[in-house]
């Protein structure tokens, strides 16, 4: 790849925000048609770096060179005119507008709508990304939405395509389609800057990798020849120990769900349809699925925020389907929802108050109807210590914590209540690799102590690592749980894609 002419060279870029240096003296270069990976944990400075290339943020120091000439885009408009296009991590799409309108908004000089629609059809067919320009984006699946973003970029004939964590919302099959498109683009001479922390993807797709840690370049690697473990350790800067599984005996059934159907309280939500499963003491059930297939609703139905007929949900054999969250907590079920600010924690309340909100019942934090502040503070501080929550103290508002730290606090708060049943949605979302490993270990430890655990996640690797059994939510239906051992990624993909019949034919 060294014989490729250099397209973009970044030289000594530095960008500081009050209190944080996001990028310190970062240099790297991309050749024409090269697929270059930017590898790093959350907060390593990857996003800031690409925002500077895309003209959203101005660097404090350093310079960029585009095909030998100085390159300093003042705004995304200038970057687009040069030939830089970007697919965002959190989609930059407008749900109430149709596909063609969304594409037009990302272009400098869009043609009239009719011509644009024809162009969208042509490009989407050329790259194997079928898309109807007149559909509302709000009605599209996550994979289709990403196609809108990609096609928006492709219509501008980019020389450099930046992709920020593109696969986090895709099924394995959709990832395959995406990679085929990216390889085709690369063969046509478009350079791709690929940001991810998913190492296997980078190894299968990228020609070169630059590894960032805490805003600095800590190394480069050839992803084709390095192992995933080498890349991960370069990224984290420490030796990673995979979670340790203790030998576990399966005990009695602690959580039983049978034939659970509830309507979704969320607008555009997915109702649960005839969900059935059981989890025994000491067991971890992993539930996968593309976002929006009933994960939030399942958590609500298990935590008690949506009521169901009483015998549909049983905690330690006691019917609990019509009971609220408080009674289910008393019976031994703790739940940690995905949305940390606003659902799992009250943003403007202190960590002590937040600890009280779910800990009051199981930890006995009230005395004669009054809050026992000493005990509550003590409990909050124990959680902070045990889960390495980085905060100036237990008095700060939940809002002030970074996402990863708040996640550690929320999970720790639930796991510290000696639960019988644990339900967690997205346990390590937005948490760096070391903290994620600690959270997974804590979950496994609780299971080893005899808790039944349900982990809902979109991170397949995580589920395969900690689960004993595995099921997929698809359109509000749950596939029958299957033992994780012997399960291949292909089979999981089929389960996620909704091809139930095929999966059965495959296996019987």
């Amino acid at each position, binding site marked *: 790849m060294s014989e490729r002419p250099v397209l973009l060279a970044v030289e000594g870029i530095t960008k500081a925000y009050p209190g944080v240096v996001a990028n310190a003296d970062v240099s790297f270069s991309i050749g024409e048609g090269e697929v270059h990976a930017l590898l790093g944990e959350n907060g390593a400075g990857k996003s800031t770096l690409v925002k500077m290339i895309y003209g959203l943020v101005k660097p404090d120091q350093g310079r960029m060179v585009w095909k030998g000439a100085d390159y300093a885009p003042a705004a995304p408009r200038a970057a687009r005119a040069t030939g830089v296009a970007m697919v965002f991590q959190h989609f930059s799409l*407008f749900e*109430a507008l149709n596909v063609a309108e969304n594409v037009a908004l990302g272009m400098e000089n*869009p043609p009239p709508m009719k011509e644009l629609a024809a162009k969208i059809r042509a490009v989407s067919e050329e790259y194997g990304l079928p898309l109807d320009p007149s559909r509302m984006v709000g009605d599209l699946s996550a994979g289709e939405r990403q196609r809108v973003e990609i096609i928006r970029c492709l219509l501008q004939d980019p020389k450099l395509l930046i992709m920020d964590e593109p696969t986090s919302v895709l099924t394995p099959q959709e990832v395959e389609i995406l990679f085929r498109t990216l390889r085709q683009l690369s063969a046509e001479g478009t350079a791709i800057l690929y940001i991810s922390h998913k190492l296997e993807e980078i190894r299968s797709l990228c020609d070169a990798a630059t590894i960032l840690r805490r805003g600095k370049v800590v190394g480069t690697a050839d992803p084709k020849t390095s192992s995933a473990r080498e890349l991960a350790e370069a990224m984290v800067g420490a030796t990673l120990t995979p979670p340790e599984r203790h030998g576990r005996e399966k005990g009695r059934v602690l959580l039983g769900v049978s034939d659970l159907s509830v309507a979704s309280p969320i607008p555009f939500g997915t109702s649960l349809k005839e969900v059935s499963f059981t989890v025994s003491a000491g067991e971890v059930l992993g539930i996968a699925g593309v976002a929006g297939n009933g994960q939030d609703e399942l958590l609500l139905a298990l935590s008690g925020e949506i009521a169901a007929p009483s015998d549909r949900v049983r905690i330690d054999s006691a019917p609990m389907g019509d009971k609220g969250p408080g009674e289910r907590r008393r019976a031994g079920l703790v739940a940690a929802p995905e949305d940390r600010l606003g659902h799992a924690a009250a943003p403007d309340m202190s960590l002590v108050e937040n600890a009280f909100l779910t800990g009051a019942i199981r930890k006995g934090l009230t005395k004669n109807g009054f809050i026992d502040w000493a005990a509550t503070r003590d409990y909050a501080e124990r959680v902070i210590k045990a889960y390495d929550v980085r905060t100036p103290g237990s008095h700060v508002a939940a809002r002030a914590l970074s996402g990863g730290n708040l996640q550690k606090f929320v999970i720790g708060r639930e796991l510290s209540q000696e639960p019988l049943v644990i339900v967690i949605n997205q346990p390590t979302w937005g948490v760096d690799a070391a903290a994620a490993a600690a959270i997974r270990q804590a979950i496994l430890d609780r299971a080893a102590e005899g808790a039944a655990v349900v982990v809902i996640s979109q991170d397949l690797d995580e589920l395969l690592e900690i689960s004993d059994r595995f099921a997929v939510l698809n359109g509000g239906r749950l596939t029958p749980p299957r033992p994780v051992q012997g399960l291949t990624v292909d089979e999981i993909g089929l389960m996620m894609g909704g091809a139930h019949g095929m999966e059965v034919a495959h296996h019987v």
Partner: protein
Amino acid sequence: MDIGGINLVVLVASLMVAAVPILLAALGELVVEKAGVLNLGVEGMMIMGAICGFITAVGTGSPLLGFLGGALGGMVLSLVFAFLTQVLLANQVATGLALTLFGLGLSSLMGQNYNGIKPPLTGAVPFGPLRDIPVLGRIVFSHDWVVYFSVAMVVLLWWVLKATRLGLIIRAVGESHEAAHALGYKVNRIRLGAIAFGGAMAGMGGAYVSLVRVPQWVDGITAGAGWIALAIVVFASWKPWRALIGAYLFGGISVLQLNLQAAGSAIPVEYLSMSPYLITILVLVIMSSGRGRAALNAPAALGQNFHAAR
């Protein structure tokens, strides 16, 4: 064409006039809300337009300059709102309510010496012989220029919002300011423009009240028209044509109930006076209910402030 002592042709012709203030204000607010800003200060901007327009028209003797003065007055007040909400990120609901109270008070102060004065007359557009066509001439060709302007604005805004790039950008900003920012659009600048436009339209609507409808200056002259304009925007599902229907309905019933009062109807005056407000709201509620989509048609970022956090 007389029914119960009320001439239908005259009724239609006068409802078009009666609807102009709320139609103009509603169209302005529609654009503001499409851009994702909830400005509850319409009433305040209208009454500022009413007094500024009145003072300009009396001072210069030109009704046209009066309308421009009214638009300017409304726009200046809306820029206060824009500064507070877009630059200082104040709560839009509270700021809008304060704006109305402020506008009512300030206009009363400015209007101290203008009670009992007659403004210069805004004449009908000279259509010549066209005016003499029976029925049509009275309904279509007998109005002043502002009536035609208000209808033209309905068509213009419908077209701009639906088919132009400017309209697309305004809708995009109101739909998701985060996404618009990521694509490089200046969210707060676009909203500022929309707010100023909304202020100018409300101001013009107010000027029409004090220069044509009443025509003189009294305290609190707009009498809640701004609130009706706000309601019309919501129940019209943010569509210009429906805003026109809503405004004409309100204007029509206002005129009708006045005629009924004059004709000595048996219905008590209090009920007649409240009828335009009641019926307009009722009809628009029915129009926008039961479709599901109507409620979803609201701009998703409505009322939320945007700060580029990077």
